[in-house]
């Protein structure tokens, strides 16, 4: 494996545990002071929906506006969320930051779930509730997930001609067998060696497994990553760091439907829910490799197309309206999808042969630089 010099050693901009604790303590002290003054304790949480998420054309990524919602204890429409947010803060403060331990958001969910006193009410019913509160706290205190010592269950796999060091372990990503290396939730690793020419991100694990068996990454000298559906923070952070620190182009391959295109959108521009941390998670240099609507004709898989459902059409229309999708090329693709009212999955290529993806489709597209912006 040829060794490529690692260009720059970008430092993670994480906040130290002490500083994070200080921020949480300040918040709690302010709340207690409010309570003593007989005022409702509250916290300001920046809004992370389309109304407060803007597109930065220069940086080519989403960022969060300055609108914030007040979450007040005494407003009974907020009380439950308020409680859950302070519970998350206390959990991170006492159980994680004080001890220097990390745990998963799932573990935290179980740690916080209980029935309150002699009522019939649970503190938390579904993990989604504490997940959101963790992000709320993160945004409210201007922190990142890693600062709270919280991790998500890892999703996403990577293989390729590179060596990384993770918590002191040296990992050769070219020797990951058939399964690939599970991308950790907190990508706090060091790139030791890398000879790849580009990064190929593929939405589906099935396609990743096919390409891995065909040793595509070895033959074409690339990093091969699957996000296994919508990309988790770990995969997004890894792609962001490899693209920036190793200066590699990124090609993304998803299904040809609203969900697939949105996966690309999140990888490239960032997501609305995590718009506060786009510069760490988004990779604007990403290019869309496929599956495009044009590919379906060019590669003769029209028969494999599926009728688009109402939700697909709705999603497609939403994407078409995003300010960051207003390029000629994308509008043409989306118009075509809306006109045909059809969609196609990556697996449609299997019709042309099991290895058609690795032997024909991908090499042709990459060689011709047939990408969408």
């Amino acid at each position: 494996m040829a060794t490529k010099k690692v260009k720059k050693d970008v430092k993670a901009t994480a906040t130290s545990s002490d500083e994070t604790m200080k921020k949480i303590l300040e918040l709690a002290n302010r709340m207690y002071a409010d309570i003593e003054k007989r005022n409702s304790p509250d916290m300001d949480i920046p809004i992370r929906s389309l109304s407060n998420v803007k597109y930065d054309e220069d940086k080519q990524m989403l960022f969060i506006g300055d609108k914030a919602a007040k979450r007040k204890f005494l407003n009974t429409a907020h009380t439950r969320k308020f409680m859950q947010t302070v519970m998350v803060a206390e959990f991170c403060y006492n159980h994680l930051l004080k001890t220097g331990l990390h745990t998963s958001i799932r573990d935290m969910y179980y740690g916080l779930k209980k029935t309150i006193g002699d009522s019939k009410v649970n503190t938390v019913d579904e993990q989604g509730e504490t997940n959101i509160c963790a992000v709320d706290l993160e945004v409210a205190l201007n922190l990142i997930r890693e600062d709270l010592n919280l991790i998500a269950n890892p999703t996403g796999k990577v293989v390729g001609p590179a060596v990384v060091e993770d918590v002191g372990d040296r990992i050769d990503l070219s020797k990951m067998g058939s399964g690939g290396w599970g991308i950790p939730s907190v990508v706090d690793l060091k790139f030791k060696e890398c000879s790849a020419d580009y990064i190929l991100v593929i939405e589906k694990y099935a396609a990743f497994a096919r390409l891995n068996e065909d040793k595509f990454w070895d033959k074409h000298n690339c990093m091969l990553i699957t996000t296994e559906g919508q990309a988790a923070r770990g995969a997004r952070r890894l792609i962001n760091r490899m693209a920036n620190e190793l200066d590699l182009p990124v090609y993304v391959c998803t299904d040809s439907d609203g969900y697939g295109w949105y996966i690309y959108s999140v990888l490239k521009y960032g997501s609305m829910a995590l718009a506060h941390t786009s510069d760490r998670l988004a990779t604007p240099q990403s290019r869309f490799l496929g599956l495009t609507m044009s590919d379906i004709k060019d590669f003769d898989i029209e028969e494999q197309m599926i009728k688009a459902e109402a939700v697909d059409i709705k999603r497609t229309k939403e994407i078409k309206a995003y300010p960051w999708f207003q390029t000629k090329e994308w509008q043409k693709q989306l118009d075509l999808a809306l006109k045909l009212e059809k969609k196609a999955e990556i697996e449609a290529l299997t019709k042309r042969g099991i290895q058609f993806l690795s032997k024909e489709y991908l090499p042709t597209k990459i060689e011709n630089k047939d990408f969408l912006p």
Partner: protein
Amino acid sequence: MPTAGEDVFKDFKEHSVAEFFKKNRQMLGYTGAIKSLTTAVHEFVTNALDACEAAKIAPDIFIQLERVGPDALKLVVEDNGPGIPKKFLGGVFGQMLAGTKFNVFKQSRGQQGIGATGVVMFSQVTTGKPTKIVTSTGDNKIYDAEVSIDFKNNKAILSNEKEYSGTMRGTRIETVLKGVKYQKGDKSPDEYLRRTALANPHTKITYIDPDNITHVWDRSVDAMPKMPEKTLPHPKGVEVDDMMSFASHSASRTISSFLKTDFVRISSQKVKEIEAKINFDINKRPQDMKWEEAEQLVKAFKEIAFIAPPTDCLIPINEQHLEKALVNIIKPEFYTLLTRSPAIYRGGVPFIVEVGLAFGGKAGRSVTEDVEVKKNEEGEEMVQSEMEIMRFANRVPLLFDAGSCAITKAILDIDWKRYSIKEGPVTVLVNFTSVHVPYTGTGKESIAEEDEVIKEIKLALQDTGRRLGSYVAGRKRKYEREMKRRLLDVYSLPVSEAIGGIIGKKHELVLSKIRELIESKYEGVEEEGGEEESELAEDDEGSEE
């Protein structure tokens, strides 16, 4: 005693009365197995109440229904009334139209003398057996007999007559009814008696139902209702045939004096006004009045203004008394009552509308059986109830023919949603009091949809509806406030643990401060409504696990 009933029955001479009864028993309320039973109970109970009231005795009535066959029930009704003197017994129970109320212009419950005899007949026709009567006027002599009816001659046949000494006052009737059915619910004797107790607060009713369960509705007030006065007709309430009938019975020598003496509110001045509008001589004998002349008079009456009729002949339930009965029997959480001032319909018939609205307690009809059971936030089943309508005419509960009744029409005309009481545990009680109740049909179970009657009922319902509406709305606000406070109380525990845990203070201390905060917020003024938190984050990330 000779009655106009004899005239009525003259036409039926060729047929036996039994045939008449069999053919026409629906006219007397004997249609269907369920209704027949309730009608029989109604007749005896009404008679008992009327007898007690006439004698100024606070009624204490005992009713028992006992199953004696697959479609047969024995009915026992016993009162503490004045008893029936031996010589009148046959007349009361065995002769059609022998009552004392027929053709008298006076507010009454009764059914023109057919009632009690009708039950005896029904029993006789369905079982072939007589009805047993035990009665005493309280003179230490008890009279015991069996009554049946000689249909051909419309006469009572008394048999097994016995007389013995003993202390008793009142009347006990025992009769067996066949082809009847006891079914709990809106149209049952149970409901009839409950409503009777409600509209007759001076009455004690003890009832043993066919399942041998004893129900007691105690007297709510000791005061006896005032007895209704007899009254002369008011000119606005007279139709042409009434006019002809009154004129033919008049003792006056001239129509002019007939008008002044046989009607209320007709003065000499008014006679002059009338005279100016007609073209015949009012100094002739009333008996000589022609139909066409009667028409002129009725027309003149309609055009002339008269002082409203005296209303002392109308005895409504009385608001205070009804209130006590309502509280006693329905035990509502909230109630409101209204007695309208007397009004007139058909131009001259006085009537009074009384309305009661009750909320909570035993008010409303439970509908849990028919609909999906709703649960509240705590997961407890909530009893679903809908509006219960109680119709009364002169204190008599009307259980049947609700669809064609002015009371039902008025209630349906009200937009209850405006008072936030469309559903829920609400009982609407309407009592229509009049000398002449405009029943539809002979079943006497519904009041004709006279515009004035509907208007009066609606006005009363709107007033009381507003009062109940503001209570319900306030109750809802209070309930919501309590729910919010409870929610804050529950959530303050984990909040105190979390904040205390971060700042290093005991959670009990933080909790007590939070409770003080909630207390300060919830004492006195109402807090602003909690607004939904705007959607903070788009769910665009898929699952993060």
